[in-house]
């Protein structure tokens, strides 16, 4: 059996352009060029980093994308506005509800569609549940990258299952909810469902306490993450970094406050800010955001108004917005997720563009990793919180 | 040739010594030279043990004592020697003995 080197490990021909260079130069000087990915346990999918090492210290890091480029934007131009909705589920497959919302928001802007109040509340509830789900899973994956043998990830996924049960009983699918529509939501949550959500919200704080006992005070985790992957606020702003990563550098910018979309202004919540911009801050900001999300959930569940879930004037079939363009964005769990739509009056958008938060957050990956070791690069990448479906689209 | 153990041991140790010598002289790689010297030291240790075992008894464990000190010194020598090699390598990116002839960095 002829077996070449492991793909990704010794990346002959992983990217053909780099072929010649890598074969001849793999041990150039004292530097070692390692190609991490596209198959690597810690790249959260099929992401690849070409890392040049001096000993174990990174002197150069080049990300390589496109291994999960599924042509979302091209497909979005060939299917109807409604047909793109299930595709948005598959963008950031850990937080389909917020993707739905961002897309629905952009289309509603484009078509001038009003949304009933109840639907807005339900959207907030689902978005915050998604945030809980996403941040919990992220913490689990981050700890997995730190070298935990699965335990935090298991606890995170245990809680994720509870949230997914809610999503499933509401929308019919665990991950690919396809729940929101232009002008509201597809199904009205029942009283049972709301009671379940309330129960989950009430006990989520207990879970977070236990999770934090396991992780936050852990000396090894503090030593591994504090001071690692620092990011300055200036660079973060210039590089378009958004979401918890931006707030971990101390920049107070949360679209839920800034854009005040949906019914967020009605809720009382705070925006946690970090001072160091390192991996630990990014992790802690997410934990603190989860606690704020619980507060929002409590308020939203308490104040959920009665009424229709869907604007009766909204059209499902033969939906043709007027010619024009719109850019709508919301605060997704990973950062600003936006949709840019250009309509020429036909049933399909002329241009359908996704502004992927984790793709743009990766702009600063090299800046954060330089001078750190391979082990750090892994957790820095983990703390950026990428989902490849969204990075490569 | 008698099959007495002591001359055999001594022959063994002298052969090892000469091997180390040849290695140290013939090779130009500093690490190998160092390893040759280590072998020579080991050969000396063999003698100590051989004499301790089969030689006239002076003090019960003197030979063993000597070997232990010798091992300690050899370890120190190896550490310093290899540190030197690394330092030299840092300077001229080479560890060939012939080229390490400059006294200035």
């Amino acid at each position, binding site marked *: 059996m002829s077996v070449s080197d492991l793909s990704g490990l010794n990346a002959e021909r992983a990217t053909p352009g780099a072929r010649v260079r890598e074969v001849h130069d793999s041990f150039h000087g004292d530097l070692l060029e390692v190609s991490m990915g596209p198959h690597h346990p810690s790249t959260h999918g099929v992401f690849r980093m070409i890392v040049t090492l001096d000993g174990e210290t990174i002197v150069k890091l080049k990300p390589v994308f496109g291994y999960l480029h599924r042509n979302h934007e091209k*497909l979005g131009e060939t299917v109807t506005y409604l047909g793109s*909705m299930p595709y948005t589920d598959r963008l950031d497959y850990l937080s389909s509800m917020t993707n739905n919302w961002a897309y629905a928001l952009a289309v509603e802007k484009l078509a001038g569609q009003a949304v009933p109040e109840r639907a807005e509340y339900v959207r907030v509830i689902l978005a915050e549940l998604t945030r809980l789900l996403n941040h919990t899973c992220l913490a689990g994956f981050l700890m997995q990258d730190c070298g935990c043998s699965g335990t935090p990830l298991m606890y995170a996924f245990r809680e994720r299952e509870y949230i997914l049960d809610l999503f499933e009983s509401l929308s019919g699918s665990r991950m690919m909810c*396809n729940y929101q529509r232009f002008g509201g939501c597809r199904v009205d949550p029942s009283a049972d469902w709301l009671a379940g959500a309330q129960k989950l919200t009430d006990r989520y704080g207990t879970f977070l306490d236990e999770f934090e006992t396991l*992780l936050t*005070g852990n000396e090894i985790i503090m030593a591994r993450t504090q001071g690692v992957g620092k990011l300055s606020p200036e660079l973060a702003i210039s590089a378009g970094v958004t979401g918890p990563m931006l707030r971990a550098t101390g920049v107070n910018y949360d679209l839920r406050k800034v854009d005040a979309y949906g019914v967020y202004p009605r809720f009382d919540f705070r925006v946690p800010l970090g001072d160091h911009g390192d991996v630990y801050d990014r992790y802690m900001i997410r934990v603190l955001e989860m606690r704020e999300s619980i507060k929002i959930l409590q308020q939203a569940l308490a104040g959920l108004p009665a009424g229709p879930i869907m604007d009766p004037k909204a059209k499902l079939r033969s939906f043709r917005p007027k010619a024009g363009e719109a850019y709508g964005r919301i605060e997704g769990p990973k950062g600003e997720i936006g949709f840019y739509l250009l309509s020429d009056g036909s049933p399909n958008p002329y241009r359908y563009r996704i502004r992927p938060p984790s793709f743009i957050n990766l702009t600063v990956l090299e800046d954060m990793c330089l001078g750190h070791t391979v082990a750090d690069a892994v957790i820095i990448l983990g703390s950026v919180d990428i989902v490849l479906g969204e990075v490569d689209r | 040739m008698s099959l007495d153990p002591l001359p055999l041991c001594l022959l063994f140790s002298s052969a090892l010594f000469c091997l180390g010598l040849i290695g140290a002289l013939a090779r130009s790689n500093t690490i190998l030279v160092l390893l040759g010297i280590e072998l020579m030291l080991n050969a000396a240790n063999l003698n100590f043990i051989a004499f301790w075992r089969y030689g006239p008894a002076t003090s019960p464990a003197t030979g063993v004592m000597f070997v232990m000190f010798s091992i300690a010194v050899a370890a120190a020598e190896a550490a310093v020697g290899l540190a030197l090699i690394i330092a030299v390598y840092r300077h001229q990116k080479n560890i060939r003995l012939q080229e390490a002839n400059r006294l200035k960095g």
Partner: protein
Amino acid sequence: MLGTGLLQGLGVTAKNFVGSFHDPARLTTIEYPEVKTKLPEAYRNFPFLVTENATDPMGTLRCVACQICEKECPPQCIYIEKSKDKKPDATGKPQLFPAIFAIDTSVCMSCQICVEVCPFDAIKMDQVYEIATTDRFSALLLNREQLAKSNAYYHEIHPTEAAEVDARLAAERKAAEAKAVAAAAAKAAAAAAKLAAPVAPKTPAV
């Protein structure tokens, strides 16, 4: 600090270890092949076609081959060919029916858009998920016969929704019948009127 955080962590794992022997919340496993998760009513996996009558599935398909789902299906996994002749549908109206109705489940993304856009409640989402197979083409390409499932089955998996659909259909049927009766009555009246007065305006055809 000084290892206390590590000890607390050990405490959490120990609590979970001990808890797994007595606390169901700390042993959340569903032992799958023997025990199965209770699927929520809303759960959807792949579409199926509703038939009114289980004994004559092809004769009582609700589908009228309007091809809306085919057009709306985002991944384009539905293929329909209309029949040449007509059959009475659920409400008794003569309608076309699908001569070919195929769904490629290896393409379907379970988005439910076909169900939403169907004006005839003819296509619904199934809940069967144990369909792993060794053969891609003959097992995952479902044709009309494989897709057709009875209304009773639909009631079984989505009771609330099915009841609603049935009520609506019944109402529609009633309305149609009433309309038909009215039309017939009108026709009769018109005929009577025609007999009475030959220049009476024509009632529009139904």
